[in-house]
């Protein structure tokens, strides 16, 4: 009887207020603070696999700037479908791929999160002011089919904390 009342409470003002509070809190938590993201695709493997669920901390860059190696969600037209990539270079730095090795300002970057061979080659380019250079963790796919490059800072929605 008690369990039934807990599951289906009596319809009174108190229950209505509780439901409204619960809905508001859930909306605030999951749309403005920690947005859940369902991963589709393999561009961030092995760190994040196809079909897994992650959360994006949308307040992460409210008082700080994005840092190298942060995994970030990138807004497209809105925030319902986003790209998930890792920041590898900051404004003013020079990025290059040579035989699958990522070089930032001419020095190879240690990337322990990578698995599998890569044969990517990309001529050097400088990251423009106000942008960040992002790449997925799965570099064993052909470079032509992998979406990566410079992205405007304003498009960074938040950080994936774990």
């Amino acid at each position, binding site marked *: 009887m008690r369990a039934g009342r807990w599951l289906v409470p009596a*319809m*009174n*003002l108190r229950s*209505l207020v509780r439901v409204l509070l619960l809905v508001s809190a859930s909306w605030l938590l999951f749309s403005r603070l920690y947005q859940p993201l369902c991963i*589709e*695709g393999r561009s961030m493997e092995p760190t994040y696999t196809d079909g897994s669920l992650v959360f994006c901390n949308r307040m992460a860059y409210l008082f700080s700037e994005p840092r190298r190696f942060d995994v970030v969600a*990138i807004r*497209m*037209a*809105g*925030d*319902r*479908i986003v*790209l998930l*990539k890792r920041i590898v270079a900051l404004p003013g730095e020079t990025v290059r791929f040579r035989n699958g090795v990522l070089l930032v300002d001419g020095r190879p970057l240690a990337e322990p999160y990578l698995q599998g061979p890569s044969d990517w080659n*990309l001529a050097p*380019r400088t990251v423009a002011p106000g942008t960040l250079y*992002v790449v997925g963790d799965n570099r064993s796919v052909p470079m032509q089919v992998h*979406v*990566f*490059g*410079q*992205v405007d800072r304003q*498009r960074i929605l938040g950080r994936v904390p774990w």
Partner: protein
Amino acid sequence: MVKKVVIVLAAAAVAVLLLRYFFPSDERLIRRQFDRLTENISRPAGEKALAGLQRAAAVSDLFSDRVRLDLPEAGLAGEYDRQEIRTLAMVFRNRFTRLSVECRDLHMTLDRDQARITATCRARGVAGSEQVRETREVRAELVRTSEDGWLFSGCAFVQVLRR
């Protein structure tokens, strides 16, 4: 008391839904055009040839007489007429044995007879033996053709990441 409040709220919600259905705003009309476009571009598995032709024709009916396309990755840039759009839709759909297209996050800027929309479009399907997954930000333009009619007059990919 609470029951009365719930009944009044429910009645108000139904009234709003009915108003929106019978007197749609421009935004709603444009959303319907996007829904029609994605529905007709999509290709269910085992679709008959005649149904494919009808859907390609339905796609072209959503476009104005002159359409500006800027989709370099698809090899399309320049102005196209409705007949060309029909052919392009047919060729595009025939590349897939199954295709599902959806548009999300529609943001509109409405002028009097013009609308600019950005949206995220996602295509998932099978082309031959290959799984296809593409997500693009798209910028579209629509023109008003009558009191309640909007047609696509332009479409372009937005470059989110620049190598």
